[in-house]
């Protein structure tokens, strides 16, 4: 790898010198060029890396040592422009530069796409901050027959230009060495501020591209997944593999192994025996190992029922993310999403919602207009089941019948479509045009996949498990004080009368608000204890799926859309969930349906 520093700039006074606070370095660039990989390489911290634009929607900060200097490195969301019509996440990055929150800009570019990178260079240069340009993925560029004259580019722009293959760590030392030579870029003045002609001319001059034969396989695969005749069967296979891996292997095999093999065989009896022996107070014993015990209920739910499911889901989902497959689903779904006031791009937050609705709610920032963001947040809250919930659904209904599963998904999908269609008509505002970049298809690297999956599992353990325990403690208190009976009795007209479910289900819905998967795990237990009939299970799971989002998701909705909109969504979603459940219950009864 080489680094090119314009000779006259190398003599300029260094940017790095002793200072009172760490130097702030911001990574800026087009989406999906590898900013987060470089961030990780510089700071040793991991920012989620995926193969689709929009993985980073907020900013991540980390420390790096450059020579003897401490730097704060900021990873920013990818931007296609810093001027003109900007999306929410592009504003985030623009503010970093405009408010002088950075001392130095490292622009990361995909070496294949010099023209687009230069348009961004020109816009970033307007903020007059010292810059370094990184041409990343030069290996992929060479394979595609693209060579860039980095030395001339450096002298024309007056900034260091460094070539890297960040994923392999190549060129990172050169990048660090180049930082002291960073300088404001010299861009010729263009009267109307439209730098596309300049970028085109410069790129054409400094880039040699020869036709390449490599990429045939990529092209073949690309065609196979995006054409309906082959793409839809491939989608069906992908969904079936997910079902097998998460719904059967995770939710059934692993759950049985951990729940029966570990918790019921060793941990719970051991905990009960220890508690009986050493804890003289019945109330404390109950708190730990009773029916609503922290260990026997909270920990068992979190570790034995939900963990295997989210772990298998995170693994397969991370693989799909890194392969570049998910954005291609936008091509199929664009027409349908357009009827719901969105466009194909909305497939990203929707599919991410299957992982976690809270994270997906944040991802709605990549959508073009406020109306689209609101509709997407609403639909996520309404009908997209998160990984754990999805697997409990598969676990319960898979054991009943395929028809039961189809009924639930059919009702939920129809409901999403119906609400989306109404929202498109009723809410003010516009939708944006469907214009989406498709990342290259890649074979996911195992290291990133493992790293990302482990990080997400750790996130689950830190975030969800405490909530499971708090929820269990809350249920324990409600039970001991007799309030639980009151809640169950209060919920009876709705739960038993309207939905035709056993009264105990009320407590499961309370748990569901804490975390949806916690509630779903409760239904899982009820159903295994034989307390739910097949039709009741379908009704209960449908209501739970459509029901209010969990606390974390609700807080995120407040953050993204404001309290008023969040409360409106809450009331609306609850109404839809209960009325759909009631409708389903009566339809089953009148038609005499049983699964």
């Amino acid at each position: 790898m080489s680094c090119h520093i314009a000779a006259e700039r190398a003599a300029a006074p260094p940017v790095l010198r002793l200072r009172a606070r760490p130097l702030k370095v911001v990574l800026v660039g087009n989406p999906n060029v590898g900013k987060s990989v470089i961030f990780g390489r510089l700071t040793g911290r991991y920012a989620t890396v995926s193969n689709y634009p929009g993985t980073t929607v907020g900013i991540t900060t980390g420390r790096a040592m450059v020579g003897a200097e401490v730097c704060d490195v900021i990873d920013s969301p990818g931007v296609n422009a810093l001027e003109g019509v900007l999306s929410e996440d592009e504003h985030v990055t623009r503010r970093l530069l405009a408010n002088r929150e950075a001392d130095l800009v490292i622009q990361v570019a995909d070496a294949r796409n010099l023209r687009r990178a230069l348009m961004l260079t020109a816009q970033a240069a307007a903020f007059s901050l010292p810059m370094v340009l990184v041409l990343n993925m030069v290996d992929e560029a060479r394979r595609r027959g693209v060579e860039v004259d980095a030395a001339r580019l450096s002298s024309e722009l007056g900034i260091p230009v460094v070539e890297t293959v960040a994923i392999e760590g190549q060129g990172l030392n050169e990048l660090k060495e180049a930082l002291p030579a960073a300088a404001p870029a010299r861009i010729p003045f263009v009267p109307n501020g439209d730098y596309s002609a300049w970028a085109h001319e410069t790129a054409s001059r400094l880039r040699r591209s020869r036709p390449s034969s490599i990429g045939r396989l990529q092209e073949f695969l690309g065609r196979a997944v995006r054409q309906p005749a082959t793409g839809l069967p491939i989608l069906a296979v992908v969904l079936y593999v997910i079902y097998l891996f998460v719904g059967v292997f995770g939710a059934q095999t692993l759950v049985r192994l951990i729940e029966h093999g570990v918790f019921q065989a060793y941990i719970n009896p051991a905990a009960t025996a220890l508690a009986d022996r050493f804890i003289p107070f019945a109330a404390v014993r109950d708190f730990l190992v009773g029916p609503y015990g922290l260990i026997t209920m909270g920990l068992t739910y979190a570790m034995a029922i939900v963990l295997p499911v989210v772990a298998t889901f995170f693994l397969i989902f991370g693989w799909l993310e890194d392969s570049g497959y998910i954005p291609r689903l936008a091509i199929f779904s664009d027409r349908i999403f357009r009827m719901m006031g969105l466009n194909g791009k909305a497939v990203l937050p929707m599919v991410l919602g299957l992982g976690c609705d809270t994270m997906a709610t944040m991802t709605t920032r990549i959508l073009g207009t406020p109306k689209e963001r609101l509709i997407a947040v609403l639909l996520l809250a309404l009908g997209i089941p998160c990984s754990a919930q999805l697997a409990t659904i598969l676990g319960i209904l898979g054991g009943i019948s395929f028809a039961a599963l189809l009924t639930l998904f059919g009702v939920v999908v129809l409901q999403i479509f119906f609400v989306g269609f109404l929202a498109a008509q009723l809410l003010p505002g516009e939708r944006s045009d469907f214009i989406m970049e498709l990342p290259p298809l890649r074979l996911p690297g195992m290291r990133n996949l493992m790293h990302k999956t482990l990080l997400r599992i750790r996130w689950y353990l830190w975030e969800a498990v405490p909530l499971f325990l708090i929820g269990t403690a809350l249920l324990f208190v409600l039970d001991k004080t007799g309030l639980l009976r009151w809640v169950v009795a209060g919920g009876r007209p709705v739960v038993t009368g309207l939905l035709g479910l056993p009264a105990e289900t009320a407590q499961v819905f309370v748990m569901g608000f804490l975390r949806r998967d916690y509630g779903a795990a409760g239904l899982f237990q009820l159903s295994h204890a034989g307390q739910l009939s097949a039709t009741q299970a379908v009704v209960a799971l449908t209501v739970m799926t459509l029901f209010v989002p969990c606390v974390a998701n609700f807080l995120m909705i407040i953050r993204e859309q404001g309290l008023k909109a969040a409360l409106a969504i809450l009331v609306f979603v609850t109404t839809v969930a209960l009325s759909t459940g009631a409708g389903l219950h009566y339809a089953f009864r009148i038609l005499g349906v049983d699964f």
Partner: protein
Amino acid sequence: MLSGSSVSTFEHGRRLVSLGVGERGVVVRVLRDNPARAERLKALGVTPGARVRLLQRFPGFVFECDQTELAVEPSVARAILIEELG
């Protein structure tokens, strides 16, 4: 100022929407009747001089512009004026 209909008769050149699968062209210009759309296309590199190749027409338009693969809806493909290459 030209009215809407005379603009469309004035723009009689070829558009991305009329390319066949596998055919190539060079972007001549992007219609500015919808400025937000034109800005976004520009930011993605769809600017005069860029080489394009149409990869797919249904269920959505997919084309390669330089080294970027883009998926767009038909109305967007209609706004991109091109000159055909052999």
